[in-house]
């Protein structure tokens, strides 16, 4: 029985264990950190001033956590365009220093089809040394193309 208003998952709706192909972002040059500081308003000297970074015990200026975190959205939307990201959370485990790149990837850890097709995604951003920099989780809902979330 299908209830009125219930949305059906498309035939190619992902399954648990499906992998979101890894994508590379960066390297985040100091100029990119300055640009992000300008557009986000986060001009914390930790990200812009090597002396402040050193005073905090870092070897160099770290990229804004939100700059690396923000890579999860294009990762998901390049994977499938028929998704509405209802929830996205992340923990910043280690800094990504200026000049470093990250590789972002994901995996479907749970799938639900009713009342609305939904996926739970586990997301990671790793440094070039394969260290885990950001771990995230997203809840995405099926969005009929052309409709707003």
């Amino acid at each position, binding site marked *: 029985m299908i209830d009125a208003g219930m949305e059906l998952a498309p035939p190619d709706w992902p399954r648990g264990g499906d992998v979101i192909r890894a994508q590379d972002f960066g390297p985040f040059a100091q100029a990119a950190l300055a640009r992000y500081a300008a557009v986000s*308003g986060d001009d914390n000297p930790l990200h812009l001033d090597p002396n402040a970074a050193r005073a905090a015990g870092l070897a160099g200026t770290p990229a804004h956590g939100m700059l690396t975190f*923000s890579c999860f959205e*294009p990762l998901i939307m390049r994977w499938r365009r028929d998704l509405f990201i209802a929830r996205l959370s992340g923990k910043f485990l280690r800094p990504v220093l200026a000049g470093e790149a990250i590789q972002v990837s994901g995996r479907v850890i749970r799938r639900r089809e009713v009342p609305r097709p939904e996926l739970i995604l586990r997301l990671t951003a790793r440094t070039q040394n394969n260290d885990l920099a950001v771990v995230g989780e997203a809840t995405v809902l099926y969005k009929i193309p052309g409709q707003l979330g």
Partner: protein
Amino acid sequence: MNGRGHAQPLGSGFAQEPSADTLIRLPPIRVRTDRGEVAEFLHATGGARTGGFVPLTFPVRWLALPSVRGLILQLIGGQGFLPVHEGQSFAYEHELRIETDYILAIEARRTAKPPRLTVKMAIATRQGEICGRSETLLRIVPINLEPAS
């Protein structure tokens, strides 16, 4: 100094690290998803979508609004401390739309042990419908202000 869960008005800033937990709520703040600012933000974060949508991390820039920034700086405790981003989450009922006014409800909680600041933001339409929420978790790190040798 107020105890846990009590609201405290602005203007009674900490001269040093607080010794008890404090919660402050700001009056509602009106913001707008300006098309140009959204485009700049997308460019700086490498977003795949080039128009018609607001990136889901865009609301972090509202943490840099003067009243919010002032609150955060006040609760951090002044010079000698830096906020380090530990965690971030977003939850959306609806995608934000470009060139649209929203009303923010913001509260910040400073805990002394562990030394952290949690900033919660609720984003609503002018009609009061909640579109999304975010939570920012900052660890407060003391820094060495001595000049690097």
